[in-house]
């Protein structure tokens, strides 16, 4: 079977390309170099501007395929899956990778079944096997206790979702050029039995999954009112506020803040645990963070075992002191 390269599935929100797409390009550039083939970025939406699509080229795509229709403005699983399936059938790419976002993690398994393709979820490493050209997909499993490397020897495309923030965004190189192909899908592909009635955006809170810095608060905070001091630290660091299961269970913060087995898995550049003891369930959701620091008054707390830097002390003293220091030092660092 002749295959035509590596595809990444870019995402857009309200016509703007989502940052996670550029992380996928970083993955895609590496794979297309290893495989010696073309890298294409596929995107679905409506009214995407040439300038925006050119950014995908600037950041490393050799080619952009834009599938456009009114019905593709927001993610809906059936039209998204149908449109891609149509395209996959025509173009037969070797590899299709998407982000492990709420969109990617819904669309890809739906599509993989239709395409009779293998799919690996939430990968943290991707490479090409030298002799066979197969995609090697490595992902954490069992709460991060093991890493598994998976391949799909006989089915094409080889599909994978990639954990957001597990690679840096590809850098922009002005002057790159490549075709931007716009497709109008067939009416038959656009039908959806699901209707999107409305959307309620989060008022002012930063989404956890996209955040480069996450400050997580644990049971050590003692009560809901105290969370304000951790929020201040998150603000001072320009990060999002996360929480352990315990804190969410007690109703001190809402579920979208929860990190861990029954919450979100994050890989920020910096994770700060405040009064977090580090249960295995929590660690499963954050141990791939790049830099981990922790503040806890118990020197035996598990979190210190996986942290890079720890302050053993009372969080009610340490956190305000840190906020003050960060505010004072802003612009100096």
């Amino acid at each position, binding site marked *: 079977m002749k295959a035509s390269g590596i595809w990444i599935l870019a995402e857009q929100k309200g016509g703007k390309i989502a940052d996670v797409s550029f992380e996928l390009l970083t993955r895609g550039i590496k794979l297309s170099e290893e495989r010696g083939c073309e890298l294409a970025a596929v995107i679905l939406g409506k009214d995407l501007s040439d300038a925006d699509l050119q950014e995908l080229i600037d950041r490393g795509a050799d080619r952009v395929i834009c599938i456009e229709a009114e019905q593709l403005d927001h993610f809906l699983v059936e039209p998204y899956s149908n449109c891609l399936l149509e395209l996959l059938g025509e173009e037969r790419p070797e590899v299709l990778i998407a982000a492990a976002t709420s969109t990617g993690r819904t669309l890809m398994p739906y599509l993989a079944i239709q395409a009779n393709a293998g799919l690996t979820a939430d990968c943290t490493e991707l490479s090409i096997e030298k002799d066979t050209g197969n995609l090697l997909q490595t992902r954490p499993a069992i709460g991060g206790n093991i890493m598994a490397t998976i391949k799909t020897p006989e089915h094409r495309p080889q599909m994978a979702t990639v954990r957001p923030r597990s690679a840096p965004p590809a850098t922009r190189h002005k002057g790159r050029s490549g075709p931007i192909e716009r497709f109008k899908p067939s009416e038959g592909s656009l039908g959806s039995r699901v209707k999107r009635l409305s959307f309620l955006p989060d008022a002012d809170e930063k989404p956890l999954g996209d955040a480069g810095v996450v400050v997580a608060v644990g049971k050590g905070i*003692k*009560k809901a009112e105290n969370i304000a001091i951790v929020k201040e630290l998150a603000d001072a660091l320009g990060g999002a506020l996360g929480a352990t299961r315990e804190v969410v*269970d*007690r*109703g001190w913060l809402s579920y979208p803040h929860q990190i861990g087995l029954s919450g979100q898995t994050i890989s920020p550049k910096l994770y700060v645990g405040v009064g977090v003891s580090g249960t295995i369930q929590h660690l499963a959701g954050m141990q791939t963070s790049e830099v981990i620091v922790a503040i806890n008054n118990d020197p035996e707390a598990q979190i210190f075992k996986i942290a890079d830097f720890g302050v053993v002390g009372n969080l009610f003293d340490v956190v305000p002191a840190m906020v003050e220091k960060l505010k004072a030092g802003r612009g100096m660092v």
Partner: protein
Amino acid sequence: MTDRTYSPVTNEILQELKAIVGERYVIAGDDDKLEPYSHDEVKGEQYAHMPECVVRPRKAEEIAEIMKLANREHVAVTPRGAGSGMSGGAVPIEGGIVLLMDRMNDIVELDKENMMITVEPGVVANDINEYLAEYDLFYAGYPMSLETCFIGGNVAENAGGGKAVKYGVTSRYVLGLEVVTPTGEIVELGGKLIKDVTGYNMIQLMVGSEGTLGVFTKIVLKLMPLPKSQVDLLCLFDSAEQAIECVPQIMTRSGIIPTAIEFMDRTAVRAACEYLNESIPYEQAGAMLLITVDGPSEEQVEHDYMQIGDQCMEAGASEVYVADNSTTSERVWKVRRNIGEAYNVISKRQCAEDIVVPPACIPAIVGKLGELSEKYDVMMPCFGHAGDGNLHARIVSPPEWSDEQWEPVAEKILNELYKFTAQCGGRISGEHGIGHKRKKYMSYFVSEGYLDMLRAVKRGMDPNNILNPGKIFDLQGKA
């Protein structure tokens, strides 16, 4: 005891102590470092007292030398385990030396054939069972603080805890002790014997002596086969009376002794559930029982819990929840274990009580607590080991009260509560001990003749009153 009856720990004494245990194992002259040893888990500064030095011995011989030195120089010595006590027993109220047992933390020997284990006093209670798990054995002691408390402290306080209904308290499992006496002799008591009547039962005297009669340096514990299966039942009742009345019936009618029967009244349940944001329908429950059943097989335990569950339903339980895996078990026990924490968040000022009454009197005590709570307008959640008559009432100050408002009221409530407990044939402490916190109330519960006996024992064994002075009772007659 305000007048100073003991000599200070002089530089010369410190040098001698350092010579005995090694320089790095003596803490002195730094208030920050000594402060943690000035109190245990009892809240309130009036119960704290700074030691002059902390000594961390490694061997019985070192302790013997320390005791001889203390007798010669007339310096008080207070033994201390993990400091998780609830009665101020490890607080050096006469200053002097705190004898910290944390370095004596070896598991000396597991004797599988005799089903016994020999441990040093500084072993954390829970570590014994973690060590034993692979041998399918377990030690039945189960204080609520088991992840921190030392086995030596458990023996000194004769700790009870959650599993006493079926397994009894610590004393049942202590077969042998190596003890350093208050005058510095090393004596072996008992041994690996199930039966032993050679002389007075000194082991039972030592167990629960609150560190006043000797320092334990080795402890031989009897072990049990590890139960293969365990199930918890959370039973909701309309009223406290209904729940309590059900307790004896569980055992008499089903013929099964559960491992634990914990009682929680409406106030306690509500605070814990609100604190935990727990969704079980606690608001409709007047009280809850948390019943644990364990046994050698899943089938046996299933049979037992269904019988007990049926008894509870017949006794009027509105619902019985079954937790048979670690997730659900953790969820129901969390309610019980977080009552204290929930109230710690509500108010800083509170008394944690440990009254014990004949099990049938629990409804009367629960009623009395309700009455006192209304009369003085304070929160008095009531929870505890209903199966054995041991209740942990808390008397919680309204958060907005000051110390000056709170203390006289607390004093009045305790007076009334203790008098009522005595009328029921109860005692002031089921498992936390008297220490110095409850000393002044001893006379409500025991006769002068009884106290004289205790004094005679203490004088006979510790003529200079060196070891943990000022605890349980005052030595000078009717002081």
